[in-house]
């Protein structure tokens, strides 16, 4: 337990991605099977462990600690698990250090009452950090700021394999992943993914930069709209159906409406979108509607009715037992068209191709797409085979110009890790009239990238020299008609929001330019933003 606890403790306090990867790689090197596999499962939330309710831990603590002293302590620490880990009176002479493996293996074989006594014995002998890790583990809330994707990257680094290999295998593996580790250490062959309907790592596109244009021969390419949803892979095989995100997370549970309609044997690459139930299929709704259905474990009937999901198909990777990824795009596309035409899957349609004559024509289409739900164009070389990752020169994306507004810097917050000595997170606002008819700034968004290191230094200096108030790590800066720093903000879209004072929320806001030259009074008004919201 101690090694696992130390890992969690370090992960929580290490801000940098590379630092976290290194910690996990070191752990995989130092810790044998099956423990390291259980640790992986705990962090990726794939661990099936009999959970112990926080209320039960609280009761157990109450038997050992005065209620008033506990209440005062909990009040101070703020986190129940951490309070218990610190206040639990260790037992002198209790020295049996339970291992992570034993926790996983024994807890699942026990009744609730047995578990209570056993957990108490474990807590008696552990130090506060290990107690904290144990409590987090068995109450099922690690929350250490490490996602499944980062763990897979650490595994890939550890074994010197591409992350796509791990993603491809992932859903065929079960904790404690012994076969995976054996392969990563070169002691065994790559484990076969025997699971039906596996994930196939996705192929991605490069963004077109001005310098790329001369190297792209438009006549070699096919064109499609770039739809503003989320990229998914829908796989059905022998009755097994799965919907994967582009990183291979299984998101089937959130989209039962879609998954039920998958009565075929195929793997389809496409865009997950939400359509308007009042219109004939499939009138695409803006991204904000899709957002209502993301990151949910379960969905209500009302959600299914109001925000029905479908997939706009881009590619066919596998069909009736045949891997099609080695075929050129042109041939896959023909097979996809035939597939949609003959199978007519209820919640699928075909991403239409677009005919493009020239760069000028392409630029015009990009500037004036026919629908709000289109965020640009895709260029796919007709000869391209489907390979995972982002191969150079095969697929391109040309996103529409971002929206731009001028806003005034209102608050600045200290960054994290490398940027912790800089004020690098900015809240900015636009003008609106308050109830007395005078203009006031209302926050419309927050951005923490888009500027160079040099620009960061200048903004940081500006913030320090223009602070009017402080709240912990946040500074309020001068922002009035006469004084204030204007930031040009680029963003991808705008939606109505009840949670924000301004009533709007921005997608991917970032700072595109610093307008040291522009008077704060000339920054945009909230009405300008409201006019940008799609209906």
């Amino acid at each position, binding site marked *: 337990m101690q090694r696992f606890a130390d890992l969690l403790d370090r992960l929580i306090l290490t801000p940098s991605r590379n630092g976290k990867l290194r910690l996990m790689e070191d752990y995989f090197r130092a810790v044998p099977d099956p423990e390291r596999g259980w640790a992986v499962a705990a962090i990726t939330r794939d661990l099936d462990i009999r959970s112990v309710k926080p209320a039960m831990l609280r009761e157990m603590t109450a038997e050992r600690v005065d209620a008033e*002293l506990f209440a*005062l302590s909990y009040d*101070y*620490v703020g986190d129940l698990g951490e309070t218990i880990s610190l*206040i639990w009176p260790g037992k002198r002479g209790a020295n049996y250090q339970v291992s992570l493996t034993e926790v996983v293996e024994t807890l699942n074989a026990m009744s609730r009452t047995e578990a209570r006594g056993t957990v108490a014995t474990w807590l008696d002998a552990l*130090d*506060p950090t290990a107690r904290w890790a144990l409590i987090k583990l068995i109450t099922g809330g690690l929350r250490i700021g490490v996602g499944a994707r980062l763990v897979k990257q650490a595994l890939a680094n550890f074994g010197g394999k591409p992350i796509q290999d791990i993603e491809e295998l992932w859903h065929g593996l079960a904790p404690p992943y012994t076969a995976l580790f054996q392969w990563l250490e070169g002691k065994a062959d790559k484990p076969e993914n025997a699971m039906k309907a596996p994930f196939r790592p996705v192929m991605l596109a490069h963004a077109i930069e001005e310098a790329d244009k001369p190297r792209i021969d438009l006549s070699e390419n096919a064109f499609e709209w770039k739809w503003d949803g989320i990229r998914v892979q829908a796989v059905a095989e022998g009755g097994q159906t799965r919907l994967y995100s582009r990183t291979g997370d299984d998101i089937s549970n959130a989209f039962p409406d879609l998954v039920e309609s998958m009565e075929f044997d195929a793997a389809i690459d496409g865009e997950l979108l939400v359509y308007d139930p009042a219109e004939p299929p499939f009138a695409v709704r803006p991204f904000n509607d899709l957002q209502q259905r993301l990151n949910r474990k379960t969905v209500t009937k009302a959600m299914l009715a109001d925000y029905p999901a479908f997939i706009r198909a881009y590619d066919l990777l596998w069909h009736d037992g045949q891997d099609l990824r080695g075929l050129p795009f042109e041939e896959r596309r023909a097979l996809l068209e035939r597939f949609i035409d003959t199978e007519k899957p209820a919640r699928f349609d075909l991403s239409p191709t677009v005919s493009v004559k020239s760069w000028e024509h392409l630029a015009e289409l990009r500037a004036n797409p026919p629908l709000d739900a289109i965020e640009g164009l895709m260029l796919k070389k007709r000869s391209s085979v489907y390979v995972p990752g982002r191969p150079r020169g095969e697929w391109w994306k040309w996103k529409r110009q971002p929206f731009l507004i001028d806003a005034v810097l209102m608050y600045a917050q200290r960054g994290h*890790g*490398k940027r912790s*000595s800089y004020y690098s997170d900015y809240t900015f606002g636009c003008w609106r009239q308050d109830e007395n008819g005078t203009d006031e700034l209302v926050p419309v968004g927050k951005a923490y990238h888009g500027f160079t290191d040099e620009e960061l230094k200048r903004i940081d200096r500006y913030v320090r020299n223009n602070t009017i108030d402080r709240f912990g790590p946040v500074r309020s800066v001068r922002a009035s008609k006469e004084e204030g720093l204007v930031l040009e903000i680029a963003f991808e879209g705008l939606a109505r929001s009840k949670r924000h004072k301004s009533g709007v929320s921005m997608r991917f806001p970032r700072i595109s330019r610093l307008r040291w030259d522009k008077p704060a009074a000339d920054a945009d008004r909230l009405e300008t933003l409201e006019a940008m919201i799609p209906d």
Partner: protein
Amino acid sequence: MIRPDQLLCPSPAGLYCPPGDFYIDPVRPVDRAVITHGHADHARAGHGTVLATPETLAIMAVRYGEEFTARRQSLGYGETTTINGVEVSFAPAGHVLGSAQAITTWKGMTIVCTGDYKRREDPTCPPFEPIPCHVFISEATFGLPVFVHPDTRGEIAKLLGSVQHNPDRAHLVGAYALGKAQRIITLLRLMGYDQPIYIHGALQRLCDLYEEHGVDLGELRPATIDAKDGPDGKKGGKQDFAGQVIIAPPSAIQDKWARRFPDPLPAFASGWMRVRQRARQRGVELPLIISDHADWTELTDTITEVNPEELWVTHGREEALVRWASLKGLKARPLSLVGYEDENE
């Protein structure tokens, strides 16, 4: 016998002694002050007469200038003086250099005021000495049962281990300028770290003072990039600080000052680091749970050992310690004095 509050009682300016007409650690200027130790919330400038240990008087002179008080009265550990009929003496508190418990006796009543204290290893000052008394006035900075600090040398070992594992990163250790910084340095030395240790400018004069009082800090160098002697003996460059230990006031380790170092690793030596979320909020990557205040175990063990007739609790989490005492059947009350700060905050 008299009531204890006839000898000492809380007042807006601090703990007051009516028969002796003096205050202990007053928070505003008074005619006559008894000062337990040199931390700014206990030792303030501008009193008429200051009675303190010679070390504390020296610390105050360094921090506030020689004019910090109109008159100084020096009293060593174990010596006794009389102020308007009240006997006053000092016993070591083990908190920082010169720190003392103030012992007041009048008409057979003895009250010990601990100031701040701890019971753990500290090579920079003599250890706390339990004094029998009627009333024991204890601090309660870490007066909650969640505060049980781990072994101090284990925490220093964590720092040394991190330096070894991260030779490319400058280790910035936030430590209070008086006491904590010098304690960390001496503990590093005791555990075999013989490299030069770099210090922030704000620590220089206090480190010099400790040296003058016989505390050996080993080789210290200013943590400035353009210092004449960098770690390689030449003019210091940014990269020369990689893998080095740099000690600075807590506020500096996350501020502009820290930018001069290569990939700084922020560490913070404080009892508050026991609470993970506090470390995280401050952006501390390496929390070192090292305190100059007694933790819960030290507080309760000390009170049990001194075994007073009555316990008064001041600055910190008073309620919990009073609750603990009442569960033990010991008469206790919170003093609710204002003006004292939590360690390092």
